């Protein structure tokens, strides 16, 4: 076979198979480090043999088998140098070909390991992105705007913890599943948010984070009919459906009410709606499904004015019962402003701000500014836009706030637009 064809096949195989091969090798070899070495060896073997012998029909199985064989071979050689062969684990000498298991199961197992509650939250995210999503340490560092050594240490510490605690590579038992699922869903949610919220930095990596979060969300939702797993996937799909309309051609932020709704991805929205139906049918919905339900009402509305704000306020009330965070209270206050008018909304937002927890949160001040602007209180609006601007860090958000502030400064007539 032509060497350049073989090289191209190898690169394709790496992109498509590496994470799955790694997940299976971690199960077979019982640890991250051995599996990563085996993965490296497997691709080295492929680089040697595929150009000569042709590309195997089942590349995943070939790579798993090659990686496992070379590792066992190396362990045998090393133990011959240091100790007697008898000291090897018994299974290595017997070494039966492992029974083929669904590679998806191995990936799921790996997600649960990487999101193990024993690990620090930072460590869970870094480990999941590297071991399950296949990102390099440097890519994760760029996406999170921290240094590569910081990420490297989080990963080293997380792996050491798993090794020290002898965490088994298996799916949690059914009794434990919902508690363990919570940690997995949170990691997926945080990965998605990181990809979605930020508008600075290398945009390609950011979009990749969202795509990977959705892939992981699908994988987890396929495991069980858990309302929150379905809800989180629906929530991510609904946000993803609007991605293209969030930023205009100049890189400026476009608010929900001004987005071109004809460009929202309808297939994505339909899929999310079907997932939500399944989630609500379980009658055990939590914060993700409720947030998704709110996003779905926005997606179903033909315009901001045509939105069912009564339903949205009611859903925020339900969300407030399961998630008492100040950000939920803030969002409810903004929805109230849409339902009952700017004055009512302004009073509600000010009540939330008075509790003090959101004093450093730029979006809270931006919300107050926007409601004050709509209520015709230009001076209060200006003060809040300035406060928001002092706290905001993302360039697109800053430009948006600066534009609003400039419009207000041109006079009260412009302020009401």
């Amino acid at each position: 076979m032509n060497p350049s064809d073989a090289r191209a096949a190898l690169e394709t195989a790496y992109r498509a198979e590496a994470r799955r091969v790694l997940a299976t090798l971690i199960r077979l070899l019982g640890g991250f480090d051995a599996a990563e070495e085996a993965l490296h060896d497997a691709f080295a073997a492929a680089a040697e043999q595929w150009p000569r012998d042709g590309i195997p029909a089942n590349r995943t199985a070939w790579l798993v088998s090659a990686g496992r064989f070379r590792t066992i071979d190396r362990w045998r050689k090393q133990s011959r140098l240091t100790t007697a062969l008898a000291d090897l684990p018994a299974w290595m000498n017997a070494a039966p070909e492992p029974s083929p298991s669904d590679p998806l199961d191995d990936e799921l197992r790996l997600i649960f390991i990487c999101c193990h509650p024993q690990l620090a939250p930072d460590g869970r995210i870094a480990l999941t992105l590297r071991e399950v999503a296949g990102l390099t340490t440097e890519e994760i560092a760029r996406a999170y705007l921290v240094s590569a050594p910081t990420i490297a240490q989080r990963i080293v510490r997380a792996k050491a913890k798993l090794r020290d605690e002898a965490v088994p590579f298996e799916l949690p038992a059914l009794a434990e599943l919902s508690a363990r699922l919570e940690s997995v869903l949170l990691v997926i949610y945080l990965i998605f948010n990181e990809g979605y919220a930020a508008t600075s930095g290398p945009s390609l990596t950011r979009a990749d984070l969202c795509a990977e979060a959705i892939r992981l969300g699908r994988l987890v939702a396929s495991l069980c009919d858990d309302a929150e797993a379905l809800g989180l996937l629906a929530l991510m799909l609904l946000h993803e459906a609007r991605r293209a309309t969030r930023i205009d051609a100049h890189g400026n932020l476009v608010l929900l009410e001004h987005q071109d709704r004809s460009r929202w991805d309808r297939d994505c929205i339909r899929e999310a709606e079907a997932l939500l139906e399944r989630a609500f049918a379980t009658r055990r919905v939590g914060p993700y499904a409720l947030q998704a339900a709110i996003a779905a009402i926005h997606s179903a509305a033909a315009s901001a004015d045509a939105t069912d704000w009564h339903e949205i306020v009611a859903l925020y009330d339900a969300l407030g019962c399961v998630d008492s965070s100040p950000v939920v209270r803030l969002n409810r206050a903004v929805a109230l402003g849409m339902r009952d008018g700017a004055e009512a909304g302004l009073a509600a937002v000010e009540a939330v701000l008075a509790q003090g927890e959101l004093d450093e949160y730029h979006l809270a001040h931006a919300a107050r500014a926007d409601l004050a602007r709509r209520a015709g209180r230009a001076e209060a609006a200006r003060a809040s836009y300035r406060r928001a601007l002092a706290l905001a860090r993302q360039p697109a958000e800053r430009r948006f706030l600066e534009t609003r502030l400039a419009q207000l400064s041109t006079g009260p007539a412009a302020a009401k637009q």
Partner: protein
Amino acid sequence: MRYVCLIYFDPKVVFNGSDESNSVLGAVGPHDRELEARGHLVTGEALELPENAVTVRVRDGKMSATDGPFMETKEMLGGFQLIEARDLNEAVQVASGIPFARLGCVEVRPVVDFSQPRPKL
């Protein structure tokens, strides 16, 4: 990506003739060959002791050459390996296998990617 593993150790520990030191020195050759066989090792050299080194500086167009370096610390640069690894964590994993890491330490430094802008300090 390429990384340089800078290997630091105290020569008084490495060459003290103890069983531990001798086992590390004995492991270096086979480990190099294994790294090479596995495609990680690009190149590497062991360095003679600093007493055989000369330090060169040019200031105001004048060159000066002095003996040394003479360092405050006991650990000195004893060698380096240029390795190929997927990312920083794989490089750390490879570095942890270098036998000298058991006696001294290994500094892992990413090789500069000149397609990226220079750091602003």
